[in-house]
């Protein structure tokens, strides 16, 4: 058990040895440390997937290029898509869920701290498992949505699809465990007085995202299980020869896949909804409506999946139905954009880096949304399916949307997490390079798609009129790479000699700014009481209608701090994740490994569950 004396202000903590420090990270159950682990691992995967994109762009820079083979190109776009979706954007969002949800709802940790650590270690084992395919020389090459029956034994005889299939399965377990955890955390651990409608909008969007995760992932879990049975045990789910329908995969995949799109974008929307009011120094315009829109998006997200499948010939009724729902889902999104713009209207805006990225988000995401509504019309979609137009569209929502939003969050919360402010000049340089590079890369792809360039081709002939804009797109991609180099330089420079951040460097509105930067291990010395939305702002500035700022609460006493209980570190999460990885990877190696790994998993689950069966110090009951 962590000694409470360690929490006392000014307490001397013995400097840990190197291995002691490593062990403390491996066994941590602190949501803040797990958040940092998620964020840094996700950034590494982001760089890997980005490098894969750069190689693809180099290959496509000129016609008839021979930099990589067709097979390598297939592997590159498969790994790029899979890594960006499951190992970069989702875990970057998870980093903010982990770090910010407890802070913003006034809690000391998540509901299940050890389960949280388990989610992270399962995520890492899934990511590593997927990337071991490079060493095994069987890199997944079926595209990020791995359509059946391209993934059958007949067409993918090597282990490449197996790595992809089990990698995604492992990552799904991690996401779902984290989803249960955050759902309970948000419902059950809000500070006294924080009613649902007083929750910050980032928390609301995270809340909707967790619902989507726990309800949408089972569909891909089943799709992947059926694929596993087809590949390993001779079932016929995706086998047309036996009467099976390859469309079964498409339906199951997109029943997951479309909510997944909102899983990727809603957290970024939440971040933007926190950044804009802070830097406009104005309450979020129509916050309840933004919340209702988020909930509506969550519901509708389950009713639009087949718009990914207009070109397979589902018939006019299905096409019409999914076309209508898809057009409808643009409405709540449009409402949000209006609300964000109205938040800026009449605000006293401070142009700092987080706001730049949020504004970039609004502009780019709106463009992505517009090309998205175009696809909602089946006749238009038939023209655009599998062309670069689609590639341009989803990069405008995933890069222009999610990545801009997530980096807005990174610049916004960096001082809270590290205690140092990122350099503003380098931050703005990062923004402008990324903004320009992004548009130079992806805007021409709309045009390339419309003049007929299909996606996922490894090269093209020189007389099709595609040469110039492909070269431009490649130049843009390297500009994006440069912008992230600037970000890395900024991070290193800030770590060495960054400006020290106060507890509340942006004059923030939500609870995380009420505690020191970086926060102490217990977050809140005294659990705050919440009386309003933007409670912290009202505490500082009054309500703007003549109400005086609230009197400051009495200072926290040492006795209060000494009474705080934090969960002790645990090594069961990482061991359990290892055992599960051992069990699943055994399917590619030996059945004995599966059995041993399975029994080990069962044993470790038992030990995990029993660790706190009877608290050693007699508390807890």
């Amino acid at each position, binding site marked *: 058990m962590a000694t409470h004396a360690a929490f006392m202000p000014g307490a001397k903590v013995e400097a840990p040895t190197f291995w002691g420090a490593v062990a403390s990270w491996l066994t941590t159950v602190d949501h803040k440390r797990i958040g940092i682990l998620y964020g840094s691992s996700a950034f590494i995967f982001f760089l890997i997937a980005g490098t894969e994109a750069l190689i693809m762009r180099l290959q496509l820079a000129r016609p008839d290029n021979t930099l990589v083979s067709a097979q390598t190109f297939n592997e590159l776009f498969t790994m790029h898509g899979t890594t960006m979706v499951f190992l970069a954007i989702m875990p970057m969002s998870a980093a903010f869920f982990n770090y910010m949800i407890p802070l913003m709802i006034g809690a000391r940790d998540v509901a299940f701290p050890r389960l949280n650590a388990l989610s992270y270690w399962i995520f890492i084992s899934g990511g590593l498992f997927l990337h071991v395919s490079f060493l095994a020389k069987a890199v997944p090459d079926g595209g990020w949505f791995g359509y059946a029956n391209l993934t059958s034994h007949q067409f993918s005889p090597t282990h490449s699809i197996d790595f992809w299939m089990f990698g995604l399965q492992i990552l799904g377990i991690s996401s779902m465990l984290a989803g249960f955890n955050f759902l309970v955390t948000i419902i059950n651990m809000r500070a006294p007085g924080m009613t649902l409608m007083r929750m910050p909008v980032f928390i609301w969007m995270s809340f909707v995202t967790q619902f989507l995760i726990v309800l949408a992932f*089972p569909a891909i879990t089943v799709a992947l299980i059926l694929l596993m049975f087809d590949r390993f045990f001779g079932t016929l789910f995706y086998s047309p020869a*036996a009467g099976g329908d390859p469309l079964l995969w498409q339906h199951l995949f997109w*029943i997951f896949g479309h909510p997944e799109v909102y899983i990727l974008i809603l957290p970024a929307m939440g971040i933007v909804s926190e950044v804009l009011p802070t830097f406009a120094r104005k309450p979020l315009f129509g916050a309840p409506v933004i919340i209702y829109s988020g909930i509506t998006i969550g519901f509708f997200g389950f009713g639009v999946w087949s718009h990914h499948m207009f070109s397979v010939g589902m018939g006019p009724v299905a096409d019409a139905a999914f076309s209508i729902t898809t057009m409808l889902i643009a409405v709540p999104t449009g409402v949000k954009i209006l609300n964000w713009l109205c938040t800026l209207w009449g605000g006293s805006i401070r142009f700092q880096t987080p706001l730049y990225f949020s504004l970039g988000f609004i502009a780019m995401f709106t463009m992505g949304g517009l090309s998205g509504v175009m696809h909602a019309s089946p006749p238009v979609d038939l023209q655009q399916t599998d062309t670069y137009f689609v590639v341009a569209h989803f990069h405008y929502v995933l890069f222009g949307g999610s990545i801009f939003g997530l980096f807005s969050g990174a610049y916004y919360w960096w001082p809270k997490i590290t205690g140092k402010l990122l350099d503003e000049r380098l931050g703005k340089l990062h923004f402008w390079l990324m903004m320009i590079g992004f548009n130079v890369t992806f805007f021409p792809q709309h045009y390339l798609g419309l003049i007929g360039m299909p996606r996922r081709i490894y090269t093209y002939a020189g007389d099709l009129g595609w040469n110039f804009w492909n070269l431009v797109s490649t130049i843009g991609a390297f500009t994006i790479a440069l912008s992230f180099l600037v970000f890395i330089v900024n991070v290193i420079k800030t770590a060495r000699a960054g400006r020290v951040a106060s507890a509340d460097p942006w004059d923030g509105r939500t609870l995380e700014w009420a505690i020191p930067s970086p926060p102490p291990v217990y977050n809140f010395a005294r659990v705050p009481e919440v009386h309003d939305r933007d409670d912290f702002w009202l505490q500082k500035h009054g309500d703007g209608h003549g109400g005086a700022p609230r009197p400051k609460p009495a200072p926290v006493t040492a006795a209060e701090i000494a009474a705080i209980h934090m969960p002790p570190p645990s090594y069961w999460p990482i061991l359990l994740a290892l055992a599960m990885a051992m069990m699943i990877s055994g399917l590619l190696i030996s059945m004995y490994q599966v059995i041993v790994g399975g029994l080990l998993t069962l044993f470790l689950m038992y030990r995990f569950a029993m660790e706190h069966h009877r608290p050693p110090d007699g508390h807890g009951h």
Partner: protein
Amino acid sequence: MADHAATHAVDVTHAVHDPNIGNTGLDHRKMGMWAFLGSDCMFFGSLIGTYLAYKGKSISGPTPHDVFDIPLTSYSAALLLASSLTMVLALAALQDNRVKVAAGWLLATAAMGLHFVLNQVYEFWTFVHHHDLTLSTSLFGSTFFVLTGFHGAHVTGGVIWLLLLVSLAWRGKLDRRDYTKVEIAGLYWHFVDIVWIAIFTIIYLIP
């Protein structure tokens, strides 16, 4: 904007004393189990949906009603339904701190669950050996074995969970304080039961 007094009354003493009870007064673990069950609904929903999508689409092999032994499966279903009753009795006994009685009912629940699983193993065995129906015979074989197999795996997991609880009780490590833990196991057990009602009706009874 100034209804400050209204929220002062929120009672936080629970949160201080029992780390498992949240500020809504609900138990984290129980809520987590409900979230998991919601997710599991989608899991079985997808499997049952797959079965229905492929119903009657097999181009070879036996049909469902060539192979189903409805009396046997009805007996299995009755076992599983009855085990929900013993689960509740176990919970009630534990609430009264009659630990040995609770352990007995838990053991009875696990035994009925195990009997169900063994019946299923026997059913699968007869399908394979008497009706030539395997995973790779037809779409019916694939969808049937994977759907009911995953349900059987859920029951097996539940049996292991119940037996671990029994062993805790046996070693004197389970009493009234652990009511919630047994209740959560019960939630899972009842859910697996309900899924079987759906599977039994949709797969076995509807022609």
